[in-house]
């Protein structure tokens, strides 16, 4: 196994960890963290893809864009979580299930 494949394996594991977190944790902050882990996995994937296809320059600029967008999503979701905490007094995703059926 060469370096790139090893890193790709790392990406898959990191992505899996994030999805696992989304599937099982009920804590809203932890859910945001899980999303961030997935985001980081994707960023590493781009870095590997850049080296594999010898387009490092392109990959770098893409990664910067992704980081920006990723941060925006994190900011908005955290802002929402704060609102949830303030208005509903909970951080448990299970209690956020009044909209059903």
């Amino acid at each position: 196994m060469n370096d790139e494949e090893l890193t790709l394996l790392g990406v898959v594991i990191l992505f899996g960890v994030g999805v696992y977190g989304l599937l099982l944790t009920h804590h809203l902050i932890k859910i945001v963290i899980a999303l961030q882990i997935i985001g980081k996995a994707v960023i590493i994937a781009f870095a590997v893809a850049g080296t594999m296809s010898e387009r490092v320059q392109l990959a770098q600029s893409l990664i910067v864009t992704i980081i920006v967008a990723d941060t925006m999503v994190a900011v908005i979701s955290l802002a929402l979580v704060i609102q949830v905490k303030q208005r509903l007094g909970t951080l448990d995703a299970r209690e956020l299930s009044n909209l059903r059926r």
Partner: protein
Amino acid sequence: METNSVATLIALPLALSPAAYIVERLNRKIHPGWLALLILALAWGVLGVAAYEFDREGTLTYRVGMMQLQLDGLSLFACGAILTLGTLTVIYSLDYMAEEGAADKYYALVLLLLGTMMGLVCTRDLFNLWVWFEAMAISGSFLVAFYREQPASLEAGVKYIVQSALGSAFILLGIALVLAETGTLDLQEIAQLNQDSVMLWAVGGLFIAGFGVKMALVPFHTWLPDAHAQAPSGISALLSGLVIEVALIALLRALTCVAFSWGTLLIAFGVVNMLVGNLLALRQTQIKRLLAYSSLSQMGYMVFGIGVGIYAQTLDGFEGGLFHFFNHALMKGLAFLAVGAFIYSLETHQPLQISDLRGASRRYPYIALALSLALLGLGGLPPLAGFMSKWQIFAAGIAVHEPLITLLVIFAALNSVLSLAYYAPIINVLYSRQTQVEIEQGRAVPPLMGLSLLVLSGAIVVIGVYPGLLHGALEPAARVLLTAFGG
């Protein structure tokens, strides 16, 4: 042809949306809504120029740094649809949102949403496709959670942002794999490479799942009823009438870079979406939630038509799917706006139940008629637009001459009948002679809201009687897809 009209079209709402945000602070006499309307009027002008240029020169392109924009038949059609419903929603909102406060934020976000959607349909590069898509999701998330003092809006907002972030991570992963495999992200270059690799096929799967979240394909749909029902009605109209359909176009653009026959899978998703959407709506009592579920089923028809187009390489499948896209934008837009008009006149903050509208036709004959037209059109009855687009989709399916597809068309037609079982009772309630007290005491609906409803109702009837009206715009759009999936 290299031209800057494409860039202007997209940049106009995007660049001027901050202006809508601050204008009221600079001069209290200028209402941000009217400014937004002005900006959209300018955008219409630019679209006219672009359409003229397209007519003469064919596909238009524009390059800014790394980003390349391209206006082909499909983008032109989609931009037309986006501006149509967008403009009518803004006109509607001038009165609807007048008392809500936060008008500055509202119009700035609406402009942002419209601009990003137009950017999304005009891109020719996989990564930019994602950037626009993410931008659309982010501006959408603000709008879903617009009433942030209401717990239900917050709940819908959280679900929306988490689920769409996961979907967008799928897409990004797919893009990274494409980059690793091909070394380029330009859609046409990738398609020309025509590579057969397992990696790329998996990428297609990631794209369907990723965009599927935003398109509300079953089983990725779970966020949709919450988000579409909780947003302000004008936004519900945009989300249900445009955002999910634009996501469909984004998916189709992305899928062109993977040489694999996606027809069967899309047909399957279409059929499942129709049935699940209808069944979920059948026993629903909250009217906005019902409309949201019905979007699932309508999305099923579009995906079915386009699936048939890919499967059998027929122009009619693509054209039918896109035709239904446009008609659904009008009909679902009208339905949400009409329901919004009732919410406005009842001054309610509770979710509107169907039974709340008992006898509404007595007090509000025109709005009741508009809502009835929208619902009957969604149910596929003539002389309304939905009938014609469904006919085209079904015709494309039957013309494949395969027994299984014929059976699926029958199934789809049965689903239309099933959908009447929840649309029609709403109309019965509207035309009841006993009237709910709240309805009798409801306030009058302002003229601008009525104007939007009138235009949409008229358009639905006119297209239903003369479906050839849009053929000129639909045919080039469908041809783009046919060529892209032509293998």
